[in-house]
């Protein structure tokens, strides 16, 4: 999807110019995809067992988690914001999921000695609502109370992480195998089931990515997200409901985080309150690597997915080659910086090409 999209787009921009500049521009435009191919080829040659089906499945499972978070993050960044709380929402949602599987909801607090138990679907819905709700709080803080997105979501990062720890007093919820009696024994399917040979989590990523790409390019809401990030005042004066648009992106980001929380607790058959720590940084990295501009208004879902794959393959490939995890961290950082530098070069070059065309 990404390659066709990227080249198609580049061609319309470049038009009929067959100069060295335009060839370079095309290459730069597809840089994330080029990087993906390079990284993939490198490990295919250098790391034994890299190309096996089993390894591919493992990598795609790892990538799916980061990619889902990064999709939500991409919308937030395009709208000119940032969401630092997603890692903590993952943790809190994992704890909520674990608690519901183990205990249900005890009605003791209303004076009834009875606890309500839920089946898998109900558990999923409740957890997703929790994620969306936390995203809603982020959005309300930012739009109605005018808190800077960085600060609002930083605050919620701590609140959500603290709440996750409070849930179990810091302990892990183990053995989330569910109970056939309540219909929750299928909970493990989310993380470890497969469909048509692919892990369910990868399918979730595909569905979220397709939905998000559709939203971004084929709906008024998607266009509004870009407009708000590109020029908030201009968008408002054009009749765009800025607050509602911002509220949506944070709620969507919360939804994505809740999905990841569900997948992880199901995969591990356990919920640990520290789940998802620093995930927000990986999500930001994938979005930026995929060409999302931190100043808002620019970015594509396809780019973010490719960015998530570059980071995922880099991480797993380096592990397979036995590179120390310290070096992996250094390399990841360098790749992100390089991506942004290349992005700046491309912007400059593209502006020049467009100016030239207008002059002609």
């Amino acid at each position: 999807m990404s390659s066709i999209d990227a080249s198609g787009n580049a061609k319309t921009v470049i038009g009929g110019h067959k100069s060295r500049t335009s060839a370079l521009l095309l290459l730069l435009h597809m840089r994330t995809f080029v990087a993906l191919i390079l990284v993939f080829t490198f490990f295919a040659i250098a790391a034994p067992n890299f190309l096996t089906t089993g390894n591919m499945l493992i990598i795609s499972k790892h990538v799916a988690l980061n990619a889902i978070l990064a999709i939500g993050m991409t919308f937030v960044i395009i709208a000119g914001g940032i969401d630092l709380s997603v890692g903590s929402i993952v943790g809190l949602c994992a704890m909520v999921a674990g608690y519901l599987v183990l205990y249900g909801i005890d009605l003791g607090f209303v004076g009834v000695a009875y606890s309500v138990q839920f089946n898998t679907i109900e558990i999923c819905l409740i957890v997703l609502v929790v994620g969306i709700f936390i995203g809603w709080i982020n959005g309300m803080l930012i739009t109605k109370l005018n808190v800077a997105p960085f600060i609002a979501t930083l605050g919620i990062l701590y609140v959500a992480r603290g709440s996750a720890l409070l849930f179990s007093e810091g302990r892990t919820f183990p053995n989330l195998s569910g109970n056939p009696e309540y219909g929750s024994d299928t909970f493990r399917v989310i993380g470890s089931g497969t469909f048509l040979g692919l892990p369910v989590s990868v399918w979730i990523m595909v569905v979220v990515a397709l939905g998000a790409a559709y939203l971004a390019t084929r709906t008024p809401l998607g266009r509004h997200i870009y407009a708000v990030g590109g020029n908030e005042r201009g968008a408002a004066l054009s009749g765009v409901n800025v607050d509602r648009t911002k509220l949506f992106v944070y709620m969507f980001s919360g939804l994505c985080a809740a999905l990841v929380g569900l997948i992880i607790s199901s995969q591990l058959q356990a919920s640990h309150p520290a789940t998802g720590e620093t995930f927000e940084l990986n999500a930001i990295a994938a979005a930026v690597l995929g060409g999302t501009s931190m100043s808002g208004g620019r970015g594509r879902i396809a780019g973010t997915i490719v960015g998530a794959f570059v980071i995922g393959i880099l991480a797993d490939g380096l592990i397979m080659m036995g590179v120390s995890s310290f070096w992996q961290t250094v390399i990841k950082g360098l790749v992100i910086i390089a991506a942004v530098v290349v992005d700046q070069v491309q912007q400059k070059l593209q502006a020049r090409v467009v100016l030239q065309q207008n002059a002609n």
Partner: protein
Amino acid sequence: MTEANPIGLSIRNGSKIYPGTQALKNVDFDLRMGAVNVLVGENGAGKSTLMKIIAGVEQLNGGTIEIDGQQVVFADKTDAAKHGVGIVFQELNLFPNLTVAENIFVGHEKTRAGIHIDSQAQRSAAAALMKRLEQNIDPDTPLGNLRIGQQQIVEIAKALAENARILILDEPTSALSAAEVEVLFRVINDLRKQGVGIVYISHRLEELIRIGDYITVLRDGAITGSRSMQGVDIPWIVANMIGSASKEFPKTGDHELGQEVFRVDNVCLPSPAGGYAVDHMSLSVREGEIVGLYGLMGAGRSELLECIMAQHPNSSGQIFIGGKPVKEKSVSGRIRRGLALIPEDRKRDGLVQIMTIRENLTMSSLYDFTRGFHLSLKAEAAKAAEFVKRMAIKIASLEHPVSSLSGGNQQKVVIGKALMTKPKILLMDEPSRGIDIGAKAEIFRTMRRLAADGLGILFVTSDLEEVLALSDRVLVMANGRLTGQFPAGASAAEVISAATPNLNRVETQ
């Protein structure tokens, strides 16, 4: 008088060319020391360009600058400052978070050993400057706590701190209250006595006559009048500003005006400085009518349009379209009711620069191409192409960023976006600002055509010639109030005197 006011700086045969326009045409300008040299002209006449050249912000393409008989070339503003030229821009370049003393010395701090800021020395120097300007302002006050008028004084002090012998003031009174203007004039008087050469730019003609010693009038980049202020009156200034040869304006159409389509009743907007920015404004527009709203900067015209477009939650008053009250509180709601605004600042308010021409054009009408929640890109692109043709926008591709277009074509995109919402009333704030003459004429023709099709247009302008030539009816605002209402064909003098209600008071002094 010439003996008492030696020429401190002179420009000979100065030319400045920007891409597409010649901003200054072989200008000869003498700046006299110990005097107030006023510079007057319409927007785009070249005042700002001339001033920027004296201040070293811009460089001449041809001609020379001499200071005290020595030819000089200013590489930049710092270079000009070394030669004793200081400038106070219309928009203050100050830091509200720093103190008065810190603001005065920002960029050229007084230091010990080059690194340690000598706050004590800065404070006493700032105090001395304040004394020289007869201001009772504590150098340790955070700048943000001062009133605008006092901030302006600090800006002047900043220029004086660099030993400015030549001080350029660009529209210094546009944001000041009457009392603050008096203070500023006292300061200017003192500086004049101290031998400082002052260049004073303003649209307020009565001020110029009161404070000026020498006057220079610019029109279309050329100097049309230059003399001592003795014997100068408003008609002389206006005649030189506007000239006899009119620019090409499209003829007023012969179409019949329809019924009243738009009415504003008693709109008020409290001003943060106290009083009202918009003071009980009422007006109406008929179908097919072009109503020009003239006034000086700060008269409250843009604020009125913003109130109409639901940008000020604190505003009061009522708006009617086709006789029915507009209750919608959101911009999208008002657009649905048939209002459309062309904002004054295209870059900041009108366009999303990084988005494409197509996306900008359809920004306000996306739901027209949407079924359920599916946006039809095909229908959208077709509509955008139709408007590009209709507005005669020159583009290479709909998919280019809008920032790649010229000012005139960008403005057409903004107008196209507004028209796509099928408005009944078009509000245009300075629709010809920052675009070249050819594009201006095209925009004016478009306005005429739209009016002939029955659209009501309310447009704001600071260009006297424009308001007189384009309007079916001229309204004048000053200090937030409606101060005059004239039919087409009103005289320039009438309109100007309505826009400067203090004129008579000043003249009798």
